[in-house]
Every structure is written in C-alpha cells, then in structure tokens.
C-alpha cells in the first residue's frame, strides 16, 4: 500500500462545503461589475484559485492580469491543463502552492523558462495528479462527495507524490484510488455569453468547466458578450451554468486573448512566443511584465498595446470554427 506523500491543500470535508453552499446567495440580482471590482471583491490573499478553459484556450486573461497587477500573495493554484494561465500567475509571483497535472509545459509551444525556475527553486509547494484524477476531484466536489474512486495514477510516482489514497471496492475487492474532493475558494471562467445574473453559455467542448463551476465556492465569469435572459429561456439546453452558481459577471470582449476562443478568434502565436522569450531571465521578464501588465490600467490597455481591435480582427478572421447555422 502506497502511503500518501503529497500535501492536500484544500479540505475535502463535504459538511464544511455544505455549510458554505447553504449560505451562498441564490438571489437573481444584477452581478455585472468591472474585472478590478470582481477580483478585489472575491479574490483574497491565500485563496486557492482555479481557472477554466485549457491554458491557451478560453482563459479569463483580464482577471489573471488583474490578480498580477494587484500583486496578490500566497495563492494556491489548480494546475489542471494549465499553460498560459499558469505562466501569467507564475511570472507575476502570486503563487505559493500548486496541485499539478500539467504546468510549465505549453503543449506544442515548448516549456515556460520561468515556470521551470519557479518549481526547480523549490519556491512552489507542489502535489502531483493526472488530468483525469484532478478533474474527478472537481466532480467529487460538484457531486457533494468527499472523494471519487478512480483507476488512474495507481502504482506510479504520480500517485506517490499525490494526496490520493488507496481503497478497496466493497463489492468486488478491486483496488481503487480515492481522489479527494477539491472545492476551490474561487474559480474564474471565461465564457461566450452570459446574462446580467450569471446564466452562462460555453460553446464547443466544456473541458472540465461544468464540474469546476459547481465545485467552486465563489465563481467569477468573464464573457465575450452579455445577452438577454430571454435567450437562455429560448435555448435552455444550451445553458452551461445557471446564475445561482455565479458571483460576478464581467463583460470582456476578446477576453481570452492571447489565448484562442473557439467560435470567436484564434490565438496570437507571436505574442505567446514573445512571452516565452521574455522569460529567459528575471530582468527581461520584469521589464516585460512592467510593460504588459503593471503599466497598463486594465485589459483594454493590454490589448491596445498589442495591436488592439485591428489585431483581434485578424485573429477573428483566422478562427477555424464557424457558428452553426440556425436549426431547420
């Protein structure tokens, strides 16, 4: 029996979670606010943070920058399929602990030099997981369960350096892994459409965002556009998140830039490459962050600095996915 070796950053206690969710407001109120307002109000030093999307796909860039801009400290992070989102937070120096299924790597774009330095220096407390294992931790929380059984990670060092535990199926005696529920203090998800109350539509694949949105204690939404509530009542099969899960709604057109937003715009590869290049040493990284984040007032400033609407128009033109035509 492999003993759990990794640190468990968030409690899987479902009674504590239920007590919190009992008090979470279900009121149908106008939750629109600016990104700075939303971040200031719902993100606190020391919080455990989770981000929707997939690193370079559908990420809430504006909120990530604002967290760096406000120089938050000691945030925990769920490194689930994280690439540019982790890069922003790691470069900004706001993290002190991290559950990892995938960080530092940038898929086909190589590795993040500063992400590597951060972990190799021992400055980040880390615990290992797999994508499914970490995703099922969200699902356990979303289901109101302290754990879910799984058949992954078993027998590996990934298990040894995780905080999972081995259990036995009471019916067949099958050995299984128990992955503990993960209730992030705050999650931020970028979506296509939302109404003023927080009802939200995500188009294309959902990755793990349905479960993440339900697992999170506080949930911030940034969206490409605000639409009328009537649209949700006309297409209830398309509602990804009901409003009572959501604490803040921020309208940020182009809000996933420089990451791609399916059906909207593709990624800005030169900018992402420049970001990696800027990480080559601390000096160039700090100069880059100063220019891109600390001296830009907000996301609009950041976007303007990198080509603004004209650049976004190019990226929109290059997007492979087209919205489906109206149904017959």
């Amino acid at each position: 029996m492999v003993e759990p070796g990794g640190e468990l950053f968030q409690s899987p206690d479902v009674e504590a979670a239920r007590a919190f969710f009992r008090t979470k407001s279900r009121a149908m109120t106008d939750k629109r606010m600016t990104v700075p307002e939303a971040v200031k109000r719902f993100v606190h030093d020391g919080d455990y943070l989770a981000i929707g999307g997939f690193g370079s796909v559908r990420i809430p860039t504006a909120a990530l920058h604002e967290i760096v801009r406000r120089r938050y400290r000691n945030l925990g992070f769920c490194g689930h399929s994280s690439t540019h989102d982790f890069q922003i937070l790691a470069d900004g120096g706001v993290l002190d602990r991290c559950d990892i299924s995938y960080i530092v790597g940038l898929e086909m774009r190589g590795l993040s030099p500063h992400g590597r330095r951060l972990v190799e220096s021992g400055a980040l407390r880390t615990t290992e997981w797999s994508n499914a294992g970490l995703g099922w931790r969200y699902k356990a929380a979303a289901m109101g369960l302290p754990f879910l059984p799984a058949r992954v990670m078993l027998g590996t060092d990934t298990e040894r350096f995780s905080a999972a535990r081995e259990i036995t199926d009471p019916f067949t005696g099958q050995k299984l892994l128990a992955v503990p529920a993960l209730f992030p203090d705050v999650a931020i998800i970028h979506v296509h459409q939302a109404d003023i109350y927080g009802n939200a539509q995500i188009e294309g694949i959902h990755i793990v965002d349905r479960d993440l949105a339900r697992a999170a204690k506080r949930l911030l939404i940034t969206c490409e556009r605000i639409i009328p509530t009537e649209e949700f009542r006309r297409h209830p099969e398309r509602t990804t998140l009901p409003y009572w899960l959501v604490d803040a709604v921020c309208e940020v057109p182009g809000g996933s830039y420089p990451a791609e937003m399916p059906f909207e715009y593709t990624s800005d590869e030169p900018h992402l490459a420049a970001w990696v290049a800027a990480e080559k040493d601390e000096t160039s990284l700090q100069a880059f962050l100063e220019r891109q984040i600390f001296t830009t007032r907000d996301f609009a400033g950041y976007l303007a600095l990198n080509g603004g609407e004209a650049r976004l128009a190019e990226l929109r033109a290059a997007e492979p996915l087209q919205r489906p035509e109206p149904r017959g």
Partner: protein
Amino acid sequence: MPETGRYTLMELMICATAHLLEDGKTALIGTGAPLAAAMLAQKTHALNLIILFEAGAMAPILEKLPISVAGSSTQTHALVHSSMDDIMESCQRGMVDYSFLGGAQIDQFGNLNSTMIGADYARPKVRLPGSGGANDLASLCWQTVTIIPHTRRKFVPRVDFITTPGYLNGPGAREAAGLPANTGPYRVLSTLGIMGFDPASKRMTVLSIHPGVTRQDIIDNTGFEMLFAADLAVTSEPSDAELRILREQVDPTGMVLSKTMKE
C-alpha cells in the same frame, strides 16, 4: 539514418504509426506526429477510425493539425462537443482502443517520465509538465503507443520519476497496483526501430529496425539490455501514395513534418 532520400525519418515513423491503427477503432490522440499518423490512417486504410481528444472533441473531421488538444482545430465538424470527464470515463469504461504517449525518459518496462529530471522531487534538476492525461491514458486505454527519440538519455535503466505506468516493475505489477487488466504498453516507436514487449517478462523487445539502422545502433543508444525478436524485421517503408497524402493533405504546412525527432 540520414534525413535525405525519398522520405524523412519523421515520415517513416508517422507511416509506421499509421499502420498500427485499425479501422473502426477508437483512438485518443494528442497533437503532433500521432495525430498526423491518425489523419493518414483515416485517409488510407482506416476511414472510420474514431479520433478522440482528451479535452472533449469526439470524431471531428480535421482541417489542420491542432496546436492544443482543446483548440478549435480539434473540434471542426465533430460529432460531439463533449468534455474531458466524458472522454476519460469512456477510457475507464473500456471503450477506447488506442492512445499515444511521449516522454523524457522510458525504461525497459515502458514506464515513462514526463515530470522531472533529478533525484529530489522538491528540488528537481529539470521540471517537466507532469502527467497531463498521459497517466490516465496509459492506465485505461487498451493499447498505448509511445513515440520517442532513441538515445541513451531517453532509454534509461531507471526513470527518475514514474509519471505514467508501463509494466511498472514487471509481470503482474499493473494488476497488483489495481490498474485495469490486459492493458499496458503495446508499441514503442523510436527513431531507430519499433519495439514491443515480451509477453512473459514484459521487457522491451525490438520487433523491427528502421532501414539503414543496425542492431548495434540500437544497443549503443539504449541504456538497458534491449531484447530482440527472433523474427526481427525491417520497418516497412512509406509508399509513394502515403507520402503524397501526408505531404499534400495531412500536413501541407510542414508543422509536424518539418520537425526532426532529435531532442
């Protein structure tokens, strides 16, 4: 083998990978060479190969090679825009036949390391991304294929960190660990040859050697004692038709084909 002549090493490996894929099966595929191989297979002998991406796209008709396994290019004309949990649960249920892996290190039992180089987890010499979905796919899919450059730095006696399970420490180890029965590494496609695993010992065994490569080349570039099949073959070369489809339809921009398999 020189990167000259009728085809490149990358082209040879992509075609060899494509030959492993049967029609009407499900394949969980990431980005890069394996995806090029799957697209080639779809355009040749495996028209109805079902391509799945771990982030949630099911059975797309791919227009270009994606950069991200969650990107728009994985979702074009898909039959289902689903989610990672649906995909991973399909793997766990036993519905996914193939998956493809890579890594920084591999050992004789096919265990893979993509987490860290070094001896101390807390202070790694080199931090790598971690499992991603690799551990999941290697645990749950029926046949996993690893594509990896063949060097002593990668083919090591002992990986620094077992990120992703091969046969762990040998016969019976996967079952004892609780992993699904009758799963485990199926093939390793390297820059020198195609390896399988000995049914009894679960040790890596060369099945075929790439054209122009010698048995000694493999021994010299492997950090553990490599076994060789009695009926050792030469890896079949790509046909002109395969090369044409690969270059003109699968990867016209050379996104993958222009890469070399060196580190």
